[in-house]
């Protein structure tokens, strides 16, 4: 058991981070290179002011027309994404790992808070799942891959929660947790989770088009 843990938290972790960082850079650079080659006119219209106007509106809850029209989803998605980032980054146990391995450390969340955030992420995933099954307009455009993606995101939180509370065999869930986290990281550049990488660009472009050419709001 110990060997397995050593393996998933050692070499596999390297692989996961390499895939995540390398893959992300590759996806972004490949995209920009293709724009430069085939659609360079896009760069002509990019405007910092309108890019920021668009991005800032969309990352602020209720700052856009459509966020205001969907209050429940807005709250869920913002809470979800905030917890999704904050929880793993500021978890004491994770920061300790960084500290031990690289001698770097930063601010951490109290464990009880991180625990609640974990539950929130899982609950939000459930919300997305239910929405996907019950809302006709979501169901119509749902593919099996959408459930897989949702599973990939929920898994590290679910296993982390179980490992932390040691309700079942701790070492098994610890290993599963590390694995699930690695799968999620590695999946970001190569699945629709890449919306994390591309959304700033698509937003900036649409913001620029609306600001520079159409002189109206894209939010």
């Amino acid at each position, binding site marked *: 058991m110990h060997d397995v843990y050593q393996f998933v938290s050692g070499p596999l972790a390297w692989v996961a981070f390499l895939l995540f960082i390398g893959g992300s850079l590759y996806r972004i650079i490949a*995209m*920009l290179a*293709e*724009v430069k*080659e*085939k*659609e360079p*006119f*896009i760069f*002509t*219209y990019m405007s910092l002011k309108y890019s920021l106007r*668009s991005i800032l509106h*969309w990352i602020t809850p209720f700052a*856009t*027309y*459509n966020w205001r*029209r*969907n209050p429940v*989803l807005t709250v869920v998605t913002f809470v979800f994404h905030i917890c999704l980032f904050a929880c793993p980054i500021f978890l004491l146990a994770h920061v300790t790992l960084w500290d031990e391995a690289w001698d770097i450390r930063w601010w951490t969340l109290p464990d009880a808070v991180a625990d609640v955030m974990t539950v929130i992420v899982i609950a939000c995933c459930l919300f997305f799942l239910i929405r996907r099954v019950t*809302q*006709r*307009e*979501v*169901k*119509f*455009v*749902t*593919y099996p891959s*959408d459930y897989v993606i949702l599973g990939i995101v929920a898994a590290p939180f679910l296993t982390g929660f179980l490992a932390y509370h040691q309700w079942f065999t701790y070492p098994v869930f610890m290993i599963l947790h590390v694995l699930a986290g690695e799968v999620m990281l590695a999946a970001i550049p190569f699945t*629709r989770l*890449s*919306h994390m990488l*591309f*959304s700033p*660009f*698509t*937003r900036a*472009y*649409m*913001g620029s088009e*609306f600001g520079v*050419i*159409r*002189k*109206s*709001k*894209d*939010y």
Partner: protein
Amino acid sequence: MAEPAVTQDQEKEEEQKVVDDGIDVGISRLTTDKIETVINQVLKTETGARLKTYVNTCIHCGLCSEACHYYMSHDKDPKWSPVGKVKQTIWEMIRKKGRLAPEEIRRVVEIAHTECNLCRRCLQFCPFGIDIAYLISMARRICHKLGVTPKYIQDTAHSHSVSMNQMWVKGDEWPDTLQWQEEEARGEFPTLRIPLEKEGADIMYSVIAPEPKFQAQLIYQAAAIMETAGVNWTMPADKGWDNSDMAMFTGDNEIMGRIKRSHFETAVRLRVKRIVMGECGHAFRSVYDTGNRWLGWSHPPIPIVHAIDFYYELLKENRIPIKEKFKEPVTLHDPCNVIRGGGLMEKSRYVAHALCDTVVEMHPNREYNYCCCAGGGVINCGPPYKLKRVKSNKVKAEQLMEARTRGAKVIISPCHNCHSGLKDIKNYYDLHMDIKFFGDIIYQIMEKPE
């Protein structure tokens, strides 16, 4: 037991299976191999990172759905939602690597040409700013290259190609119409001229071809306004006078480029300072946003001024003396292509308030307005799709009805397509409202020689 009324209605719609030679004959010539070649050619060589990123980034959340009047008017049936329509067209092409059967192309044409107005409202709703109108226009481009485009709109594209105008207006028909309107107008305005080919004029005034063809009085009115405001203007005597562009909507980018070039070059030949265009939305999109870019101009090479903007200028400078403001309460339709696409919402309101006593706002308005369901070439696909078009904009009818209960009697629609589209909607839903252009109202209320 199902509700009989609904069932009958559904049956009726199914009975009305559209016969459209442009599609039927086109499809009969297709094979899966040919379809595969064309789709992959367009997807690989004509599109790039933009299309790929839009497709890969879409998280399938459905948040764009309620932007669309088709979706809202069909009891939120997801097959009409923006992302639902992309799913049935572009995603399907990518998933099947281009190998679609000819009958599957029929559905693609129907969606791309008659179930989306390219009104870009959904672009404002998607959290990622995914350009669904662009994706649907790529589907149209593919249909164009496959030779399946609804017949009526294809005919207008042919007309553009042959005569450089949308309505097969023949060489001498154009100056004759202008001369005729000039003569008529001189009865009312003795010194009025429609100056042809006046080099160095401040303004070239361009119109869409339906004006000389069916609505010559609009040219009369424009001339009357120019005369009254003392504008130094001109119109070209030959090709290049038509600013409309149905090729843009059939995906025939090459012809779009040709007609836009002719329009711009005519203005350059006449050495005018600006082009002022009549009250048309799609023409504005073509001249200001789409056509110029296809030709490689990041911005129009000559300033483009839409009629709303022009009237705003004239009214602001008090250049049109008004006898008495328009009495009947009006409501203002915001045409997507000049409002969401050109930012003229406040100027449009300035003009409306300068001309009319009472302006009743519809909701939602300004850049959030619902499209009229005629734009994007949908009305130009002709009578076979008229019923679908009016039924697909129940929400607009409700919006208008609501404005009417608050007193609005007249709809002002500064766009030709919207004008015709709203007229069909008002007739189908028995709305009993009048529809006018700004030009109609200005002409009616301005001071004229005794």
